[in-house]
């Protein structure tokens, strides 16, 4: 458990943020200049805040009130930076061992061979960092940080410097890390898809302040957070797992708490956990009682209960739909709400496009 509470001033920018990060992956999400990297630097010990406290599992790393400031080398918060920051004079293998050699004896963590295998670094060990691609560099940086046996892994926009294919190359490694290592992580990004795929807990930052914090699914279901709800891809992230594959029909079936979704076929083994962002603009509603499957192309018609109708600007509304234990958001016009006579408590059918669900 990481507890952070900071007050700091950087030029004209004031940082005043407090949050707690439970075990798992905590993503600090916000636009550039929202202060997320400064918070990460304060946790790493690379930034000394004007006032505040950073504590890991109850033990203070920084506590300005009591004059505590542990230097970064004694915090065991290994950091992966946007630019990798590999040591150019050392081979990949020596880079990887840099933190391992300095980790306390008996510190728990994966071994050298295990990390090399997990991150697919076998072929790179003898190379110099200058001869690595951007994606390879970030994988090495990740391995180097892991091997330092950190108590908390810090990642500062580790994919931001990579192009889209390279990002897709590294993201699965990060997911594997989250699922296998059980290592707490603090992850800074301004890319929503990274937050969707990695976050257990989401902390929304804007102008140096925490706007909201909580479990990912719960936060994405809220409509009062412009940082999420005002986006074109606003929608709920559902935790799913692969229930069935039908490559012949081009379909993958995903189970989520409360139902099953048909989406375009994607390569994934049965049972694999997977997060799906169901965008509000890709969800429509129909009144029940009509046999829809014969006349509709969307592929998913889920029985739902309308919980709330929330105004979104002058022309549109968010419909908050309960589907089993899960919540879906639908974005419709006010005219549609009036035409269908939609009222909270009403039974409706949520129509979710099979094609668009979860696509970027």
């Amino acid at each position: 458990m990481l507890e952070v509470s900071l007050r700091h001033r950087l030029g004209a920018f004031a940082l005043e943020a407090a949050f707690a990060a439970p075990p798992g992956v905590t993503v600090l999400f916000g636009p550039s200049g929202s202060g997320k990297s400064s918070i990460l630097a304060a946790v790493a010990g690379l930034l000394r805040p004007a006032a505040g406290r950073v504590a890991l599992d109850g033990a203070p790393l920084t506590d300005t009130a009591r004059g505590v400031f542990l230097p970064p080398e004694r915090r065991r918060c290994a950091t992966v930076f946007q630019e990798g920051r590999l040591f150019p004079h050392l081979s990949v293998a020596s880079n990887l061992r840099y933190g391992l050699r300095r980790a306390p004896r008996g510190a728990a963590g994966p071994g050298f061979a295990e990390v090399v295998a997990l991150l697919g670094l076998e072929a790179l060990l003898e190379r110099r960092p200058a001869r690595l691609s951007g994606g390879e560099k970030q994988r090495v940086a990740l391995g180097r940080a892991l091997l330092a046996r950190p108590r908390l892994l810090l990642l500062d926009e580790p994919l931001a410097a990579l192009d889209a294919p390279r990002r897709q190359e590294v993201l699965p490694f990060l997911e594997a890390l989250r699922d296998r290592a059980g290592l707490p992580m603090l992850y800074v990004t301004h890319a929503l898809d990274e937050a969707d795929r990695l976050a257990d807990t989401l902390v929304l930052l804007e102008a140096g302040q925490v706007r909201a914090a909580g479990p990912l699914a719960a936060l994405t279901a809220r409509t009062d957070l412009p940082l999420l709800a005002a986006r074109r891809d606003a929608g709920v992230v559902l935790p799913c797992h692969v229930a069935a594959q039908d490559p012949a029909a081009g379909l993958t079936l995903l189970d989520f708490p409360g139902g099953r979704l048909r989406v375009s076929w994607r390569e994934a083994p049965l049972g694999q956990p997977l997060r799906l962002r169901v965008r509000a603009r890709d969800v429509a509603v129909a009144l029940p009682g009509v046999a829809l499957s014969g006349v509709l192309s969307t592929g998913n018609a889920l029985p739902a209960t309308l919980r709330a109708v929330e105004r979104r600007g002058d022309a549109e509304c968010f419909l908050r739909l309960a589907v089993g234990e899960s919540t879906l958001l639908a974005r419709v016009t006010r005219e549609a709400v009036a035409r269908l006579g939609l009222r909270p408590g009403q039974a409706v059918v949520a129509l979710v496009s099979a094609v668009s669900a979860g696509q970027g």
Partner: protein
Amino acid sequence: MLSPEEWEAVRLSLSVSLRAVAFSLPPAILVALALARGRFPGRTLLDAVVHLPLVVPPVVTGWALLMVFGLRGPVGAPLAEWFGIRLAFTSAGAALATAVMTFPLIVRAIRLSLDGLDRGLEEAAATLGAGRLDRFLTVTLPMMAPGILSGAVVAFAAGLGEFGAIITFASNVPGETQTLPLAIYTATQVPGGEATAARLAGIAFALAITGLLSADLLSRRLARLLGRA
């Protein structure tokens, strides 16, 4: 081809210049670090003092050394009295004079390499558990290596040619302080010494060129090793 006395001048030049570089390298690294990164009062003054030998006439530098390290100087007297170390008019003195003259060259080269150094690497090392000294030895110093090396080679090549400071502070003693330039000068003062002067001048020329070329080669090698090129 060369007489024993001439060989002696060549050998002495190499030895004096080598000792000068060895003397000045450690303090030059510290001064370069202080100038590039330190924030302390008197930084500008230190910068000026370090660069003084570049702009002051070498004879003046030699004279100042004589005043300080001479047998009756504030440092030279106790050195001679307590430790029996004599600098004025000895080859050690010639090395000291050369070290002072080439010091700014080394500092400048090292500082240049520090300016291009990414502090982020040291931050990364810190989060991986490396303390201050550890970071300096395993990250900063290796990254400074090209600057240190090229500074040392340039200083060595320049030191071979030092004249004014040596002749003023250490005098012109054959076999003790008569380095190549001094030997050339002496030869030109002797009737019939032109041939000797020409031979020694050729050697001085060859040494200087070799020094510069190897400095260039070495720094390029290292840069490639460090992935900068």
